């Protein structure tokens, strides 16, 4: 009797532990996975238009092929729009797997914080979602375009952003980092921008540089090439290419250097009432492609290439900083944050005036490039006549 009693008792207690999670259980068949979504704003109606890309399966023969469907819905707030989707679909949508969110330019110009709040607050949505700004008129257009390789539009956008590690042409920002940048002092947000391009007859989505923000409002774009140098400043370049002309006179023959390792150290300095940023870029590259016949085993040529590359990287970095200072006046480099972290007492006095100071901030750029190797080949392919000269 006692034995049975104990068994019964522990059975009830154990099942208690296991069953309390089943209170609001959901069958997976009753859910559809959202892969990504786009948010537009309707000015006249003062409402949001939400377009979600939902995973779907297409039976072809015996195999199920993943495809996707778009669902649109309107609402007075973003969450209202999400719930309004229940008017359209039999299934509830599950947002925990969404990895891309696209904002339209209108929303970005008005301010992204109201829209971002839901992503941050909602328990289902994940904070490491990628945030993208649409360069087109609306955000939903991007989801409507054809895909290149994958069949899922949002997933492809997500993969494109993830592979920026070896291209360095867009800042990859996850939602929580974005919130930190928006809330932080002395730093402005910069997000990847995407637009529609025609590729081999298909209309598809392409990365088109960076969208610049001041506080939470979009104020402009820079293109992919400039983005690369911007990424150099904020030390987010992982791999990527540097294209170098053989000489200023000869623009035709280019040398491509592949970055293997690069590190940027930015330090604020304070000399007689002026803040100067010291940017130290240390890069290790390898020669990846050559259109010239130069022999880089020779010391002289190698150091010339090194010097040229350093000079051009330096001027590009300086140009982009200058451009941002002159045209946009927004501290996307986080220089202000560096000052406040390293010289807190100075920041207390100059912080409120930072917008003004940033515009006239002096920047020292030091570049150190070391050429590690030249891949498999020691010399490039040469015509016979040139070979004889050497």
């Amino acid at each position: 009797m006692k034995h049975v009693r104990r068994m019964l008792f522990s059975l009830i207690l154990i099942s208690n532990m296991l069953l309390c999670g089943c209170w609001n259980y959901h069958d997976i068949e009753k859910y559809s996975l959202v892969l990504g979504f786009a948010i537009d704003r309707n000015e006249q109606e003062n409402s949001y238009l939400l377009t979600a890309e939902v995973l779907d399966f297409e039976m072809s023969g015996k195999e199920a092929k993943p495809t996707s469907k778009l669902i649109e819905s309107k609402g007075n707030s973003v969450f209202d729009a999400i719930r309004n989707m229940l008017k359209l679909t039999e299934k509830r949508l599950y947002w925990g797997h969404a990895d891309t969110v696209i904002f339209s330019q209108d929303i970005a110009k008005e301010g992204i914080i109201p829209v971002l709040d839901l992503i941050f607050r909602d328990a289902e949505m994940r904070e490491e979602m990628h945030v993208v700004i649409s360069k087109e008129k609306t955000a939903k257009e991007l989801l409507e375009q054809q895909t290149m390789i994958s069949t899922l539009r949002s997933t492809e956008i997500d993969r494109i952003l993830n592979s920026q590690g070896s291209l360095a042409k867009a800042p990859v920002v996850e939602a929580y980092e974005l919130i930190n940048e928006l809330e932080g002092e002395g730093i402005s947000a910069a997000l990847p921008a995407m637009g529609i391009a025609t590729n081999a007859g298909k209309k598809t989505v392409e990365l088109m540089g960076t969208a610049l923000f001041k506080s939470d409002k979009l104020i402009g774009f820079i293109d992919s090439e400039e983005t690369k140098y911007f990424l150099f400043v904020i030390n987010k370049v992982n791999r990527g290419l540097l294209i170098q002309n053989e000489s200023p006179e000869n623009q035709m023959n280019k040398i491509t250097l592949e970055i293997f390792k690069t590190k940027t150290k930015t330090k604020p300095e304070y000399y007689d009432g002026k803040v100067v940023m010291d940017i130290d870029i240390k890069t290790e590259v390898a020669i990846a492609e050559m259109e010239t016949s130069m022999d880089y085993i020779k010391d002289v040529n190698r150091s010339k290439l090194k010097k040229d590359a350093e000079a051009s990287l330096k001027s590009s970095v300086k140009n982009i900083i200058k451009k941002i200072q002159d045209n946009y006046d927004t501290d996307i480099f986080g220089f202000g944050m560096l000052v406040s972290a390293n010289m807190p007492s100075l920041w207390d006095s100059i912080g409120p005036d930072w917008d003004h100071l940033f515009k006239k901030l002096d920047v020292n750029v030091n570049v150190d490039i070391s050429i590690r190797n030249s891949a498999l080949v020691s010399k490039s392919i040469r015509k016979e006549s040139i070979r004889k000269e050497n």
Partner: protein
Amino acid sequence: MEREIISTKQGTFMMVIFVIGSSIVLGSSVEAKQDIWIAIVVALFMSLPMLFVYSKLLTSFPGKNLYYILEEVFGKVAGKIISLLYVWYSFHLGALVLRNFSEFVQVISLPETPQTIIIIFLGLVCLWAAKAGIEIIGRWTAFIFPVGWFVLLITIPLSMSKMHLINIKPVLHNDLKPVLSSAFSFFTFPFAETVIFTTVFNTLRNKKKTFKVYLSGTVVGGAIILLLSVRNILVLGVHITTDLYFPSYMAVRTLSIGDFIQRTEITVATFYTIGVFIKASVCLYAASKGVAKILNIEKSSQIVAPIGFLMMNLACIVYSSTMEMFDWINTYKYYAIPFQIIIPVITLIIAKIKFYVKN
């Protein structure tokens, strides 16, 4: 009186889990901002004298728990009244811990489940453990702890690539006052909450090691809290950490290595469940010991169940919203002062005077 015995190791592990129990998820004090690690270190040093007081109390009366000591020192009536205060404190603390857990579960994963259900089902398990006695809790702790801390700490090196050192700068720029105020919060929650163990550690096998158990338990627990807090700040940055209710959960949530180590935040939730379980069980055990002592009931395990049910009730009604719960933390640090500092110190002083007079 039933005799229960726990080993030094079990005692230490219990203490560690008790200390990190609810603090690993709650972003308890946000005033210190990036200097939170200084606040924790200061709080640890602040708690050292109190730990000494607690263990001195226990070693002065070997084999007796706090309730017995109170009656011995203050006499029968006054002793019982003060004992009742401690019963209330541990009872209330247990209820708060249960409520924190149910809020956590509701906010992060089950928004539509009524909290009553979560509280009842975790509460029943705690009730079971407390009924089984401190020996069982101790043995269970010794079994789960080695797994638990590994799972908890492995997330720190894994999130290394997402850390930014700049988040912790500038050091000590915003005045010392918020840091001290934060340190005081950390002192009352969780370090000095170990006052509850004065009702438990009379069961330690080696009475001489009481202070050692107190010290190592709190220091190890404190070190883990320190590591996790610094991790949160480094990964998420100051602004997000202070905005969030449960920063640890979020910091682990951002972790993803390749495509295969991700969504590991469940480890935090699991460890939190373990912590809450231990903490609430120990509180319930302490409360029922006290009631048994006051009413002269021989077996405290016989009255665990009704007290446990009452504790679940209190957990259900104590707050009406999550916001209220986080607001309470500001009150708690003052509310806890008499239980954690004033009464133990006075008791020890009077006890010492009595000893002195006797000899």
